[in-house]
């Protein structure tokens, strides 16, 4: 960023000193780290060498924000069911937060990360700043930390349950913008949290960059549902890195849905840290035109008797492309691990292309692990059956995609969450 002066940027932020220190350290690491290239296994299929990071302008925090809900956010809220709270971030800055007063009274905290740095310094230290990104993610992870202007903390204390999701929105208003945001979800022992992170923007006549990080932490016996619903307009390049930690008997479900943007990459790292913990990892994507989706996953079993189950499904048409690279890693001591990984791809056009790279790194000997990946086309018999009922080829394809996705949607426990995602997919598929 040639025109960008980090010192001036950081100096303009009013935030606790610990935050400033971590920010500066992240900037240093970012400056030292090389840009990912196609030479690395993790970035072989997604070329970001043409992304000119210098041309993007990190949002500055000086101007006042309109606290009213943007029209596109209001539209989604009108269509959605019950919720426990709302977070709106506009161009990377928190503009609006509200939380069900009953939950606030029960000790639930929903606030900006800047506020959290003052009120929950220890928690941020432990759950966010202690994260060590993989070498492949170092560059973008540290950039997102250094430029972090937006982001929220959802903290659910021991035994408290959210019956409806927190609905969070990130909007991008125009080309040239770089947003850096983070979602920190911390569910204490026996609590229950649910979050929808929705990313949206109009179609842009230039490029914008969205850097996103998420740390999802479930203490013993906690239940978390986390959804990242990416439906940016064209022009946006989105990079999300997610670290999920499950302590003893925690039940975590994460669901990445990629529908929008030009390039959308999500790295989802799940760490099973306690016996009996369970991480359900789900994803869906539907790509058209020249959209490119990249999903990198890690199911890291560090504790025995834990379970992880990954189901990622993508459908592509036109000249869209996708890559899935998944690793199951089982540490020496993680006996009685159950780990499953499935990636299925449906190609609707000759010009579309999917790559699937499943990997196992298993160091324990008493485990049940399986992985499988398929890349296929629409079944001829199903197609003729639908045509014979008067559906056009396109309608038939779209209906089959919807059927293909249903298995994943069905695994989301919370009805309202499921319906929101279903609606967004319907809108994208155009059924």
């Amino acid at each position, binding site marked *: 960023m040639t025109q960008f002066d980090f010192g001036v940027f950081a100096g303009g932020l009013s935030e606790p000193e610990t935050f400033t220190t971590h920010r500066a350290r992240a900037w240093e690491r970012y400056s030292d780290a090389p840009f990912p290239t196609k030479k690395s296994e993790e970035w072989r299929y997604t070329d970001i060498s043409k992304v000119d990071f210098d041309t993007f302008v990190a949002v500055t925090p000086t101007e006042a924000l309109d606290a009213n809900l943007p029209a596109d956010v209001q539209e989604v809220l009108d269509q959605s069911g019950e919720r426990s709270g709302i977070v709106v971030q506009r161009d990377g800055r928190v503009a609006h937060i509200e939380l069900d007063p009953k939950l606030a009274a029960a000790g639930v905290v929903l606030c900006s990360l800047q506020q959290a740095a003052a009120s929950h310094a220890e928690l941020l230290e432990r759950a966010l700043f202690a994260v060590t990104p993989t070498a492949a993610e170092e560059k973008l992870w540290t950039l997102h930390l250094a430029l972090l202007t937006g982001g929220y903390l959802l903290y659910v204390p021991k035994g408290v349950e959210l019956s409806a999701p927190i609905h969070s929105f990130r909007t991008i208003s125009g080309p040239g913008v770089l947003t850096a945001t983070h979602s920190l979800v911390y569910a204490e022992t026996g609590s229950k949290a649910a979050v929808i992170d929705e990313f949206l923007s109009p179609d842009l006549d230039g490029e914008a960059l969205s850097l996103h990080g998420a740390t999802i932490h479930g203490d013993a016996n906690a239940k978390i549902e986390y959804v990242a619903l990416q439906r940016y307009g064209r022009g946006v390049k989105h990079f999300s890195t997610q670290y999920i930690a499950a302590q003893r008997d925690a039940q975590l479900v994460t669901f990445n849905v990629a529908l929008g943007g030009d390039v959308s990459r999500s790295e989802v790292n799940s760490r099973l840290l306690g016996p009996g913990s369970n991480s359900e990892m789900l994803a869906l994507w539907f790509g058209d035109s020249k959209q490119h989706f990249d999903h990198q996953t890690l199911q890291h079993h560090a504790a025995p008797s834990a379970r992880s189950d990954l189901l990622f499904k993508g459908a592509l048409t036109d000249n869209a492309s996708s890559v899935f690279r998944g690793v199951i890693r089982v540490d020496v001591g993680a006996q009685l691990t159950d780990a499953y990984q499935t990636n299925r791809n449906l190609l609707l056009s000759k010009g579309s292309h999917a790559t699937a790279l499943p990997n196992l790194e298993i160091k324990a000997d008493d485990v049940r692990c399986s992985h499988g990946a398929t890349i296929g086309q629409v*079944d*001829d*018999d*199903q197609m*003729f*059956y*639908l*045509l*014979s*009922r*008067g*559906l*056009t*080829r396109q*309608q*038939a394809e779209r*209906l*089959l995609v*919807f*059927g*293909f*996705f*249903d*298995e994943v949607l069905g695994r989301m426990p919370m009805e309202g969450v499921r319906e929101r995602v279903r609606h967004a997919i319907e809108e994208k598929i155009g*059924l």
Partner: protein
Amino acid sequence: MAQPLLVIRDLHAKVEDDDIDILKGVDLVVEPGNVHALMGPNGSGKSTLAKVIAGHPGYEVTSGEVLFQGENLLEMEADERSRAGVFLAFQYPAEIPGVTIANFLRTAVNARAGKGEETDVFAFQATLAEKMALLKMDDSFATRYVNDGFSGGEKKRNEVLQMAVLEPALAVMDETDSGLDIDALQIVSHGVNTLTKADKDLGVLLITHYKRILNYVKPDFVHVMMNGRIVESGGTELADKLEAQGYDWLQEAAAGV
């Protein structure tokens, strides 16, 4: 006299990648409101005829013509034929996991309505409920995935339900009775009779291997297909004769050019 519903003239057709015709000169006329039974031994070309009428891409017409309400059916794609009013009840309906019958049928109904004319969800649900009541089907059926894990009888009932909702002018029923026990056969036959009663102009081409279904669905005409051609036509007495004597007595007619 009204225009015939379906006119088939000297139709020859083959499997796409094959050289030999399976249909070797089929002639058939179906008038509105008539039920035609098409019988014949295995491999005589009955199912091929059904698929050719529906526009299956695996078959190629080598000569002859098929007119539906005066229009050249062979120039239309499978989906256009359906929207024009041709319905094929499949012998082996495809299973489509993840897509409910209600969602599937609503999409099919909207495909007929065209852009901007789509039926709203509630109006469609009312229509579907009405048709299911007509066929004495349980409401929960519509929420199941299309044919996914269905028994043979359920699959055939689902075909009849689709026929009821899509209201075709011509229904080609390809061995709808095969593999059904007597209870399922009666239910499906009741469905077909209900629909022909509700729509006096509905033409049916009922393809079957056995006379059994004709005890429940009364045809106006019976035809026998052998070796790719219709070799004998008559009334219900023809079905009785086939039941009693089999197909051997027709071998000569079938062999003749």
